[in-house]
């Protein structure tokens, strides 16, 4: 705020709210208004949080207790968690989901980067310029394709390639789905990459590989981080492909496992909720740590996509 702005706000009785607040408050009204706004905001947040809190509460109560006295908070027990750990191989689900997420996201990013680099920085000989442009559109057209239309054809493809019962059955479609958006963001960044840097590196005699890994990639860390986050969240939560393409219990992912909880425990609600909590809480903790990046990444993803 410059001096003149300060002077003006004093003159006209407007006060600077928190930095970035776009409403200029009249200080006389502001006092009560802020209180009402604050209380409303906290109340709404509490209501939004309520389902999650309720699940956590249920997970510490026995199923009989849940049915007979739904709202009592006495008799809390950790028995449900013992039941879950004894009957459910959660570690296996975590391992499967982790492997799928890491492999498909990393490979997806690598191949997308290679293609994006070729589509923006490399030179297509003679009249092929137009081909370069059209290839980019070809990839970007994938943005419009919804997942459900792919389920059955991919199921057939996996059968044809004998991929059923392997991680590859899921990794390949996950990579394919990630490519359009990866290329959208990566090419957006790469077209503006400073040419001087690139030329200097080439004059120094670097090859294509080290140009990419040592010169270009280090400058792209923010874009890469955004894409990593978006893609990992997608694979971590992915259900339609998982339920269609996984036919072995040893490959069960977390979302697929969650879909089976109701069948596994039917009326043991406490155990069901404990299992849900064991999937939910770690994810929320990771979110709490990276919340700024996650929120920014997902918002950017939506606006650009």
């Amino acid at each position, binding site marked *: 705020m410059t001096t003149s702005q300060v002077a003006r706000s004093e003159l006209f009785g*407007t006060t600077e*709210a*928190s930095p*970035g*607040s*776009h*409403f*200029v408050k009249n200080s006389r009204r502001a006092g009560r208004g802020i209180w009402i706004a604050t209380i409303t*905001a*906290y109340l709404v*947040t509490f209501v*939004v949080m309520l389902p*999650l809190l*309720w699940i956590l509460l249920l997970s510490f109560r026995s199923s009989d207790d849940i049915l007979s006295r739904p*709202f009592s908070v006495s008799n809390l027990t950790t028995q449900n968690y013992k039941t879950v750990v004894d009957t459910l191989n959660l570690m296996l689900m975590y391992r499967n989901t982790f492997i799928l997420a890491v492999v498909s996201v990393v490979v997806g990013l690598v*191949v997308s980067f*290679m*293609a994006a*680099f*070729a*589509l923006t*920085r*490399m*030179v*297509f*000989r003679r009249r092929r310029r137009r081909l370069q442009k059209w290839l980019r559109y070809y*990839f970007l057209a994938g943005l*419009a*394709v*919804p997942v*459900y*239309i792919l*389920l*059955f*054809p991919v199921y*057939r*493809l996996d059968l044809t390639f004998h991929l059923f019962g392997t991680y590859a059955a899921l990794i*390949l479609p996950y*990579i*394919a*789905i990630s*490519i*359009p958006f990866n290329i959208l963001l990566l090419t957006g960044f790469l077209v503006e990459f400073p040419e001087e840097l*690139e030329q200097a590196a*080439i004059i120094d005699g670097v090859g294509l590989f080290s140009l990419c890994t040592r010169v270009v990639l280090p400058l792209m860390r923010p874009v890469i981080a955004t894409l990593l986050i978006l893609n990992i969240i997608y694979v971590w*939560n992915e*259900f*339609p492909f998982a339920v269609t393409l996984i036919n072995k219990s040893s490959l069960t992912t977390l*979302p697929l496992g969650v*879909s089976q909880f*109701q069948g596994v425990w039917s009326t043991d609600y406490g155990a069901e909720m404990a299992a*849900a909590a064991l999937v*939910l809480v770690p994810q929320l903790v990771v*979110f*709490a740590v990276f*919340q700024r990046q996650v929120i920014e990444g*997902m*918002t950017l993803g*939506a*606006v650009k996509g």
Partner: protein
Amino acid sequence: MVWLSRRWQLLLMLAPALLVFSVYLVYPVVYSVFYSFSDYNGVSKPKYVGATNYRAMTHDDVFWSSLRNTMVVLGVALVLLIPLAFLLAVLLSGPIKGAGALRALIFAPAIVAPILVGLIWVFILDPHIGLVNGFLSSLGFAGPQWIGGTSLTPLSVGLVYVWQTLGFVLTIFYAGLKMLPRDVMEASALDGASRWQQLRYVTVPMLQETFGICTVLVITGAFKVFELVYVLTGGGPVHLSDVLVSYMYYVTFRLQNYGYGMALAVVICLLGVVVSLAYLSFLRRRRRA
């Protein structure tokens, strides 16, 4: 760069992405469209039947009821989600202590797997063990059948969808609000506009584009709802609560009527695109008017 663009280098860089993308995304789309014109059960050879599958849809009551349910979900989302997210974004961009933390908390459901969100809401909405009806009955009311009944399920699915997406849409509005020029706000305040007038005549018109983005996101999102129905009711009773995608999944993978399933998938896909485009052209026409 020309020195590093030999043909084999270009091929090497492009081939992996082109291959995976073409085989696992482009080919499946073509395949779906192709098989939507056939009678195919996976065992005998697919038989070309023209537009029969598409014509069958017009007599298929379940198709129409799932279309209606999808529209209910979309309606609930448009009526509740957009205004609620916008007003909350305005509220949370004000001088509230801990506004950042509140935004993060409201955002949290957006990163939870939809299938898990569905499971969580079973315990909120279930007529017998759910929180809502438990609360109502402790007050002496008999709660309605939120899920599993014949009528309320799509509304409930819409509500759950709103819950999951609220923080996400809120953040987009919030980002839009942050980009509004301050001087316009100051000027309107100096001119004596009340806060409501500012909101109605300055903020909303200036955020038109953001409203457009959010609405298109909500439309495409609502057409994709699948997991919520899968856990909340499984489409029951007798498909009355199915939405388009869950019905398509049932036809394809339970009935193994692949031809009809693919026709449904194509139609859902087109519907999503058409509704979004219709909305966008409506926006453009209104802006010109």
